[in-house]
């Protein structure tokens, strides 16, 4: 089976009306009502979004699992559930999720330090929710976002996350975002970037991921290497009973063992991919890249 396109096109599904409607809905009803609706909608999504269906089937096949409707349903359902959780939080609802953490003290130590650092995000679990659930007062977190999402989503996200000292840096053609990123890291602040979708730069590295070769963007790793700052992988994975489990993992390599920032970035990327695999071993249904990921 040949899949048409391997690269994410830079937009997230759903129009502004749908996003606005979801936020309105969750101001008035419990998110679990949304889950019940979702359970009915997912089969149609699986039926009509064949590209996403095939991509997830491909992912499970790479994990050595045969085609199974229930497994793909669970993946799609979890994706929808986590999107709803996001809108539920963005709607300003007071209801709280239970939050657990693993190695969060490493993240907290970085926050407490004077220097800046990079957060490597991915579409395993719900990275964006991590920014909302990890309360901290000391550093400003600059989240690099692509301009493809609707204005309403960006505006609401910025409004909600600003309470957690999270600000958005949209990727721009004139490269001004890079100066903002560099200034933030130079000033001891934090920059978060998605590390599993190529967009805005052609720089990438091929890594063995779940037994096959996949291309990962070098951006976050290059920045960490160029500016000599730490990089931490952050994952927010959903568990039962409205619980999110946050994982902070140090992404590091011997930076003196190889020469040049690109070589260091490549090593950091490979280390990160191993951590991503580890997380997906624990939460195999929470991979949400609905395009053909592998080369």
């Amino acid at each position: 089976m040949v899949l048409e396109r391997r690269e994410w096109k830079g937009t997230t599904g759903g129009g502004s009306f749908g996003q606005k409607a979801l936020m309105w809905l969750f101001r008035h009803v419990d998110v679990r009502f949304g889950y019940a609706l979702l359970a009915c909608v997912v089969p149609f999504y699986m039926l009509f979004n064949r590209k996403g269906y095939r991509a997830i089937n491909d992912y499970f096949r790479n994990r050595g699992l045969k085609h199974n409707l229930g497994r793909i349903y669970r993946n799609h359902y979890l994706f929808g559930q986590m999107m709803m959780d996001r809108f539920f939080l963005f709607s300003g609802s007071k209801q709280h999720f239970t939050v657990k953490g693993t190695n969060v003290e490493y993240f907290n130590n970085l926050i407490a330090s004077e220097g800046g650092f990079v957060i490597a995000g991915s579409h395993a679990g719900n990275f964006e929710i991590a920014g909302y659930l990890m309360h901290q007062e000391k550093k400003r977190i600059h989240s690099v976002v692509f301009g493809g999402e609707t204005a309403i989503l960006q505006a609401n996200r910025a409004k909600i996350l600003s309470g957690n000292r999270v600000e958005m840096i949209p990727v721009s053609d004139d490269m001004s975002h890079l100066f903002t990123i560099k200034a933030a890291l130079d000033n001891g602040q934090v920059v978060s970037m998605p590390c599993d979708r190529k967009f805005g730069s052609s720089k990438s590295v091929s890594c063995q991921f779940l037994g096959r070769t996949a291309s990962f963007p070098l951006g976050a790793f290059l920045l960490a290497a160029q500016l000599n700052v730490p990089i931490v992988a952050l994952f927010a994975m959903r568990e039962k009973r409205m619980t999110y489990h946050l994982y902070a993992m140090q992404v590091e390599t011997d930076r003196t063992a190889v020469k040049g920032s690109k070589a260091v970035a490549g090593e950091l990327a490979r280390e990160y991919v191993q951590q991503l695999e580890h997380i997906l071993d624990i939460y195999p249904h929470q991979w949400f890249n609905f395009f053909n990921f592998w080369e």
Partner: protein
Amino acid sequence: MEKSKIREIVNNFLIEEIEVDPKGISDEALLKDDLGIDSLDFVDIVVIVEQHFGFKIKPEEMSGIRTLSQFYDYIENKVNA
């Protein structure tokens, strides 16, 4: 600092760090289209310029720079200002 020294330093880091093909280096070479320098390379350039020439590049100053020759001139003006 003399322009020849600036050229030498810039060309060296373009070849060593940015992995630009030495054959493509010429005064008229376009940074983006001919040398293939993309936005992330630009961070390297900013860092290296700071280290070698001791000044910070301002984004607005870079907006008009398209060719390598313009880049040498920009550095020369900043260093010798």
